[in-house]
């Protein structure tokens, strides 16, 4: 098995799609939220919406760590990049995200030392190979990515690498889901649960969703068959009136999560009392900061970070799109002032942002039925 192609097998996909059609009650309109940006991307990339009946609506959730980062945090990070002694290192996802004075790539064009890394270990490696410079790693991500940052910080400390710090923007998924459910504009039937976050936190943290809100949640993989099977499982739960946490992604997600990863996170991070989420406002206990024992590797304590707060332009409706209240094309700026070439908000530039996904994969997809029938 190679664990990729098998889950893209056309006959099985067709079969599973048929099962969805069979199960979906034609008198109901289903609203399922996929929390994770990776799922949003998968839905568009694999064209899964074409396989679903009209009465199943997929609502995009806020699980895109780039999208929920307030612009001010990007400006804070970039302000440090202006120091010629600093190397600003971040994942590719961050490179085009606009700050008030430009994106990291634009800063790079102006001569600042901005580097793309593929792993926090790459950033630490940069510090080892550039002993006379300070490497600042702009860390983003949910609980999937935080343990890797934690382990890297532990290594930096044990190796005594002093020219390295992390600007920590790690956020946690449960408060985001709570914020969605608390939102009065939201009406959802069930959740497609984040698959890779769950490899770390396990499936237990979702139990309150079924107990308090009585909404089913299926932790899902990212291949077409995974997502379609998860929808089958959700439909079955709704059909029988039950609500429970199910693990569709069993081959990868352990119910209890990854203890070693959770230990690493606990060693290095603690919860911030509150953190500002773009579009969702301030949410308490929703983000990580670096513990005092690792203060020396905490960018915010090593350097004077301006602490800029930048409000989004009034017309931008990033918040409503993030919460799934609005579809991307319903934002007034979509496709006009805000496009992937000149994005206003991160949702248009992040690879998982629903606006970018919609613009790149869906927008202009008129009359596909005629294309499919003529090319069949």
């Amino acid at each position, binding site marked *: 098995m190679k664990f990729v192609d098998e889950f893209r097998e056309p006959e099985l996909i067709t079969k599973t799609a048929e099962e969805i059609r069979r199960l979906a009650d034609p008198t109901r309109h289903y609203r399922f939220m996929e929390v994770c940006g990776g799922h949003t991307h998968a839905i568009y990339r694999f064209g899964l919406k074409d396989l679903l009946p009209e009465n199943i609506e997929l609502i995009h959730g806020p699980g895109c760590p780039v999208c929920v980062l307030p612009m001010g945090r990007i400006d804070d990070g970039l302000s440090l990049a202006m120091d010629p002694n600093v190397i600003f290192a971040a994942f590719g996802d961050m490179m085009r995200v606009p700050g008030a004075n430009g994106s990291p790539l634009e800063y790079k064009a102006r001569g600042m030392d901005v580097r793309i890394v593929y792993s926090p270990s790459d950033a630490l490696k940069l510090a080892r190979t550039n002993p006379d410079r300070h490497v600042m790693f702009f860390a983003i991500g949910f609980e999937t990515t935080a343990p890797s940052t934690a382990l890297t910080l532990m290594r930096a400390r044990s190796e005594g690498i002093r020219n390295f710090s992390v600007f920590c923007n790690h956020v946690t998924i449960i408060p985001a889901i709570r914020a969605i459910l608390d939102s009065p504009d939201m009406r959802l039937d069930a959740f497609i649960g984040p698959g890779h976050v769950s490899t770390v936190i396990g499936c237990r943290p979702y139990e309150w969703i079924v107990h308090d809100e009585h909404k089913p949640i299926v932790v899902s993989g990212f291949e077409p068959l995974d997502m379609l099977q998860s929808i089958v499982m959700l439909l079955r739960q709704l059909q029988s009136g039950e609500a429970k946490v199910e693990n569709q992604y069993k081959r990868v997600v352990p119910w209890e999560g990854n203890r070693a990863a959770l230990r690493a996170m606990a060693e290095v991070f603690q919860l911030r009392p509150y953190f500002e989420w773009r579009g969702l406002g301030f949410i308490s206990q929703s983000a990580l900061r670096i513990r005092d024992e690792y203060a020396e590797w905490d960018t915010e304590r090593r350097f004077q970070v301006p602490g800029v707060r930048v409000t989004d332009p009034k017309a931008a409706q990033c918040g409503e799109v993030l919460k799934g209240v609005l579809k991307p094309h319903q934002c007034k700026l979509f496709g006009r002032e805000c496009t992937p070439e000149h994005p206003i908000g991160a949702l248009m530039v992040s690879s998982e942002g629903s606006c970018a996904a919609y613009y790149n994969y869906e927008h202009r997809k008129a009359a596909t039925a005629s*294309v499919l029938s003529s090319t069949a």
Partner: protein
Amino acid sequence: MQTIVEESVPARIRFREPQIEMAHGAGGKASRRLVEGLFAPLLFGASSEPLADASFVSIDGTRIAITTDSFVVKPLRFPGGSIGELAINGTVNDLAVSGARAEALVCTFVLEAGLPTEILEAEVRAMANAARKAGVKITGGDTKVVEHGKADHMYISTTGIGRPLHGVRIDPQSVRPGDKVLLSGPIGDHGITILLARRELDIEADLSSDTRSVLPLVEAMTIAAGPGIRWMRDPTRGGAATSLNELARDCGLGIALHEDQVPIHDAVRGACELLGLDPLHIANEGQFLAVVAPAYADAALNALNLTPGGEEACIIGEVADQPAGSVLGITSYGGTRIVDMLVGDPLPRIC
């Protein structure tokens, strides 16, 4: 007495960006904006011809193709080739996909002071070899040296002239719904090879650049199916997605792309999955796309498959009315998505 020559028609610049970014050289939307918004209005005058890989000029009744390209690559040497090969093959290919056989090239070198001579010699030898293989003469050139740090070792630029191939005329306006889209071979090899050759990643793969002259393949296809060939392009920076989108825009029709038909080597697939890249956006230096009328498509494909180097050529899609101006990717299970061109270079992602 001085005369002031005024512009007879003031050219309108549509390019509004205050500075040039890397994206403007990546071959995607930003590049197109720069070319269409700044260069075209000022340099190409009132011509409303769509931009193509080469242009044709008539000298005393004889049609001659002319093209130019510059080569900036890091590292200079990589598995499968080097900047020298790219410089020759790139221009030969631009002419080939415009329906012309390269006859002569001239080249310009911008060299960085401090460049070891043996590196320069290696590249010039590579160019001589590539030119010999491609059957093209190099008849002249120019050299400039800039200060250390002002050029990544060297930049090479080549300009080529070519003789139109008999029996083929490239014109995006001649493309019709139902026409077939052919691809000469696997995509993504060059771009991923370069990425891995930079050694910034802990990734190793058995991959090499696909740089080669595609002229023999184009010629074989022209002989077998010349009257049916509507359009060709070599998908360099920006990848196959960009070239197909350019076609869709230029002819105002849609392209249906059968994603599972597109040949991609395993190692390219693996590297793209790891980095979150789409092979359709990755540069190629030895492949081309062709749009062929349905009656000629099988003959064209057959000719390619029988020519050395064209064994993996295949039909990857067709032209349709919709979605007009866009490319629609279709999976084997009927899922669809728009395949767009990127703004700038493809960036790896972790999310």
